């Protein structure tokens, strides 16, 4: 538990996109954000469980594909009028590889 795990080469997740990591506790979405950093969120929107990995990534945020909630990738929290947050995970990049702590 809570170990760093190597996920994929950086190129597997191009800028402004996301990929899914399967885990026994459900899917985790890894985002390559506009600031060049990688972020990871539980792939379930706090609204109605929409798959966040399929949303449009802009800045450090993602717009959920189901009903357009906008979540902050850094905190997992909804922005604007909506309230709620999804779980975040730590991510780092080393030697061209993305690592996830989960």
């Amino acid at each position, binding site marked *: 538990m809570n170990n760093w795990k190597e996920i994929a080469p950086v190129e597997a997740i191009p800028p402004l996109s996301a990929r899914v990591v399967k885990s026994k506790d459900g899917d985790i979405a890894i985002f390559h954000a506009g600031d060049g950093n990688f972020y990871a969120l539980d792939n379930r929107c706090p609204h109605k469980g929409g798959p966040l990995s399929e949303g*449009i990534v802009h800045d450090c945020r993602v*717009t959920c594909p189901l009903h357009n909630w906008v979540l902050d990738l850094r905190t997992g929290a909804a922005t604007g*009028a909506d309230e709620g947050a999804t779980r975040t995970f730590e991510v780092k990049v080393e030697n061209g590889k993305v690592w996830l702590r989960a």
Partner: protein
Amino acid sequence: MSKERLAVIGNGMAGVRAVEELLRINPEKFAITIIGDEPHGNYNRILLSPVLAGENTIDDIMLNPPGWYEENGIELISGVAAARIDRAGRKVELADGRAAPYDRLIIATGSRPFILPVPGHDLEGVIGFRDIADVEAMLKAAREYRHAVVIGGGLLGLEAANGLMKNGMDVTVVHLMDTLMERQLDKTAGAMLRASLEERGMKFLMPAETTELVDDGEGRVKALRTKDGEEIPADLVVMAAGIQPNTALAREAGIHCERGIIVNDYMMTYDPRIYAVGECVQHRGVCYGLVAPLYEQARVLANHLGGRGWMSYEGSVTSTKLKVTGIDLFSAGDFLGRPGAEEIVMRDDKGGVYKKLVIQDNRLAGAVLYGDTVDGSWYFQLIREGADVSEIRNRLILGQAHLGDSGHGGDSAADMPDDFEICGCNGVTKGEIVRAITEQGLFTLEDVRAVTKASASCGSCTGLVEQILASTLGGDYSAAPSEKPLCGCTDYTHDQVRKAIRENGLKSIPDVMHFLEWRNPDGCAVCRPALNYYLLCAWPGEYEDARASRFVNERLHGNIQKDGTYSVVPRMWGGLTTPKELRAIADVVEKYDIPEMKVTGGQRIDLFGVKKEDLPAVWRDLNAAGMVSGHAYGKALRTVKTCAGANWCRMGTQDSTGLGVKLEKMTWGSWMPHKFKFGVSGCPRNCAEATIKDFGVVCVDSGYELHVGGNGGIKVRVTDLIARVATEDEVLEWAGAFIQLYREEARYGERTAPWIERVGLAFVKERLEDERRRKALHERFLFSQQFAQKDPWARLAGEHEEEFQPVAEIA
């Protein structure tokens, strides 16, 4: 490198707005000095009227406190007037002997009240209504004296008179004309306004010409005399008989002025180092006296000074509201009309409601509303957009609520209870919207969308939200920007962005964002898909599609479902299918354990609940049986619905099924501003419902009737007949040309029905009836189809297959 120096004369609304816009576009370019003769920061002059009426305080109306100037590195010289512009020496000489050097200069000196040159005009107690000092003088007079006279029955005069009355004074308005606010109202509305102001205790002397102000012997005014010899007591006289642009500085410096300072479409004066903006300006013969157009000017000026230089100012249509609490009055555009204009009038004397619409060439040219102004912003929108109103003409005067939006008809938003659900998609009530507007100080539709979500989904309640904005904000709403920006990342409208893409050869989303100074470095979920579309439409074959800027459905070529699975719809050309296709579909459903199959409203079969990981394999199997994507998910060509037609049907006049297949073969794969559907019916019984499709063909004995702009969705709209043709080839040519016109002209997210209502059927007809233009459009469509007609399923299953699988699995 030292910065260029920018000096601004006038610390008022237009000058400071231009500086604000400039700071946004290019904060580093200039060292800025603002010179203002009023001893304050910058304030909202509009709200002087509510301050006078005791509804606001001076503190409430400050726009930029001193700290703002400091934070932005702006030198503010306040309480000192600019005395002379030295163009050769490139400096502004100040009244206190100092000087402010410049590389660029903005003159934003506004205007001053026109003081009638009658004997006694310089007596104590005779003032204008322009600034904080005037309001303070009026409030002081109200405490010490009883009789006030306001000269001028225009917007400003009535607001002054109302304020003075609220402060306990006995007020008479002396007006030269026989109609109040004759520049905004017609006689009827003017008379209704007069009656209701009289009811509140305001007195009127009109028509009457002031000839003299009488001295009380100690240098203060005591009475006013008119040409007819009437004399009324006056301890305070407010001159509100018009304004004069402050052009003196410019004139003395040799800059060309007429009534105002003459500027070109970039707000540049005769001296290219010197710009002018605001009420002091005369642009294409017009001097404006309202904030909205001045803010548009400020934006163009900043765009130019900031080094962009691609926006131009082309003049504005203005609208006015009277800010007298309890009186609803709105006017916009040309309400008198040129010769040949038609009028629609509704009048209810007892109910105190009067509405007049002026229509010219099937477009709304002007509107006057009294007593019920809920639809003001809607009419204003129609005027500005030049929308063709012939279709809605018979209901136009009843207002937007009577247009027949399903679900929302009937009431106007103002009459709805607070718990009324305005936005059905996001469950937002009227009360929540009103609270958000008042508590968070929202001004625009975009703000309300961002904060409450109302109208952020299907958009069918947009009109209601706008009504709520208008009724909650009252007078301030008209000050909101007049054209809606594409999204919160930019101030540019869809049309402006598109023009910039075409004219400046912008070929990628980052190029567009960079060129137009997007506020968010990589945009948002609203603008990115729109930009992607505009680029691929402008540069077919050259532009490379940005997958990350597509909504998930278009990226994964299926409709995302509530549980995160996808639906898959293969194309069935014109609704025709074969045992082989059906067998392949059945096999796929069993092989991948797809939970549900359904026949859609678009004559094909939908497979629901396909897992993302399975999509490429499902597609491959369907491809193998000769089927391609049906684009049931895209802003693209969707279905071509056909009926049995002449091949089988005893009533059929032409081969509607075969023609439908040809249409679908020609148009599939095309990306559009919104989804696009065809219907082809074999006879006027119209079993394919062609008259509620984007493009409908109704076969008749002599050929084909072509119909456009139908919609069976949120708001049903029946098509307009656009042509009758004799051959299938002609049908194909008209269809291709129509689609291309729509692709090039409509805004992203706008279906053919609202697009045609906005631009007018006449516009579409004119472009398509001219054979040369029609053929050119058709050619351009076929050209772009070369690149579009590649089955996305085949492509994705090849190139991007790994994307559909998890990137890793962890314990």
